[in-house]
């Protein structure tokens, strides 16, 4: 982000400071590389389902006040999908990074999420919207810049990776490791079914573990040891299992 953009952000902040949630915004938004004013305009993408600000209630989706640092699926009185609850239990917490991933493609982070939203492809748009949402969170007071070990901001699985054609025979061999936990019959008795998925979703989900966007340690370990070719092979194999 250039100096000019920073300055503009600071200006926007100063303006916002005149508003209702002045103290919050003043020291918090600093850390987020985005233009909250522009983000306010993008909020219309969410508005049909979510409420924000004073008196916000749960609607189609949960209210988004105090979102930063909030564990996923923890707003009282809201009925989340099973997968969102699983992600929350695993430790998924809303930060600028996880919001980037979720808003880019909700299902890449949470397979069975009930949020029927296509996603925001432009990173700059997401950053602006996230900066805006940040205004409605008091805590944590400081959002540290991404730690050196933090996952990359850009959640996209590169088209070149999605285009790799998997070798199902190799996938069948690799699948031996998976079916100790994921039943080959596709039954879910506590571990989700992974059979018959569209390859694209399968590849995206495994990369979300590999990149550590999804929090689960077992799957992070497993996906972390799979190459892009191997992930494609597994996707091709499991696609055909039903």
């Amino acid at each position, binding site marked *: 982000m250039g100096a000019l953009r920073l300055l503009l952000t600071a200006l926007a902040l100063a303006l916002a400071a005149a508003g209702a949630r002045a103290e919050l915004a003043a020291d918090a938004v600093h850390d987020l590389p985005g233009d909250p004013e522009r983000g306010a305009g993008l909020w219309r993408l969410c508005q049909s389902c979510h409420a924000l600000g004073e008196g916000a209630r749960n609607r189609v989706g949960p209210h988004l006040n105090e979102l930063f640092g909030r564990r996923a699926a923890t707003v009282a009185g809201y009925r989340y999908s099973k997968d969102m609850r*699983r992600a*929350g*239990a*695993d*430790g998924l917490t809303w930060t600028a990074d996880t919001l980037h991933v979720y808003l880019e493609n909700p299902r890449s982070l949470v397979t069975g999420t009930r949020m029927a939203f296509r996603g925001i492809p432009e990173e700059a748009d997401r950053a602006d919207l996230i900066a805006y949402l940040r205004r409605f969170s008091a805590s944590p007071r400081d959002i540290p810049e991404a730690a050196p070990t933090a996952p990359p901001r850009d959640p996209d699985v590169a088209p070149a990776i999605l285009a790799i054609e998997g*070798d199902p*025979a*190799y996938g069948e*061999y*690799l699948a*031996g*490791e998976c*079916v*100790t*936990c*994921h*039943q*080959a*019959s596709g*039954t*879910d*008795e*506590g*571990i989700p079914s992974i059979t018959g998925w569209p390859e694209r979703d399968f590849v995206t989900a495994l990369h979300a573990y590999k990149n550590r966007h999804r929090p689960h*340690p*077992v799957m*992070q*370990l*497993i996906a*972390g*040891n799979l*190459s*892009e*070719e191997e992930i494609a*092979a597994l996707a091709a194999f499991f696609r055909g299992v039903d």
Partner: protein
Amino acid sequence: MRVTRRRLIGSAAAGAAALAAPAAIGAARPHVVVIGGGAGGATAARYLARDGKGAIAVTLVEPTRTYHTCFFSNLYLGGFRTLESIAHSYGRLAAMGINVVHDWAVGIDRDTRTVALAGGGSLGYDRLIVAPGIDFRWDSVPGHGIAAQNAMPHAWKAGSQTELLKAQIASMPEGGVFAMVAPPNPYRCPPGPYERVSMVAHQLSRTNPTAKIMIFDPKPKFSKQALFEEGWAAHYPGMIEWLEPDFGGRIDEVRPDAMEIVSDGEAVKVDVANVIPAQKAGRIAEIAGLADASGFCPIVPATMQSRMDPAVHVLGDATIAGDMPKSGFSANSQAKVAAMAVRAALTGSTAFPPRFSNTCWSLIATGDGVKVGARYEATEEKIAKTEGFISQTGEDAELRRQTYEESLGWYAGITADIFG
């Protein structure tokens, strides 16, 4: 990466050509004998039969008709599972063409490549897979022994021993003492004794809340210790006493007739004594000369071949598996590596690089599950750990509940993978 893939596809094609050859000349199918139908052996038999697509004849030798998994047998003690729910039979393996022979292997002639059966028959093999699990060093606990195993059960092979232990716990007097003599390393299922204590405590806290549990331990530390100790303090305060070796844990002897455990010269009277002796590879491995001085079997990591004989593969608890713990998960993982190596050797199919992993869940109390896991690679010398993870102390209830739910999913998954 693309190069790698092409290479793999190329070698697969070469493998297929090699496979075609013997079939074309109508040679007899190669025969693999698997000794032991547990987590390791049954998986190996199933993968050989399935992936060999009929090219390999598979015989599985297993004395019992019903295999009770040790995994989740602690949950049976805790009242979370029935005994039937951890029982498995061999019908589906037989249905896929595996010749299941319910008998004991009593000898292996490695020169003539034959296995002798207790029932009198013998089986020739091209490759042999030996997965007999563990046997006990009956002399490891003075005063104990095979004759004392009903008075002081080990329940470290699941089934009637586990039932017996459960019945003994149920008939403990009010405020009585349950004692465990924990095994020294290496042994089957490192967190198992401590999961067992948790499950016994869970059961007692409902039926006999003033009862006490004592663990006599020859080891100064144990698997997932911080997690167990945290859980015991939270769920069963004041009930469990862990005695480390220098503070009474190292015992002098047990007295099955008097139901006493003697440590530091002092006899403690107990109501139930769960004595888990030191362990070694199942006896057949020893008889066949596959074990070394440690009592376990050295293997070549990449293929699970015996270091004593390349025509024999050894799996599971019977092996010296380097950094891999003795677990059902490990045995299942090793079995797939061995099955691939055997298939490649006998039919020329592709041998992909071996992959090893393990995860062990333990249940501490209702909905309080924890896990530990790792990945491994085959080096020349051993199966070496590459990276791992473990549950953390202080995790919230939601995560622990989910970890428990996962373990249920895993049990259903692995038993389907082992027995079909």
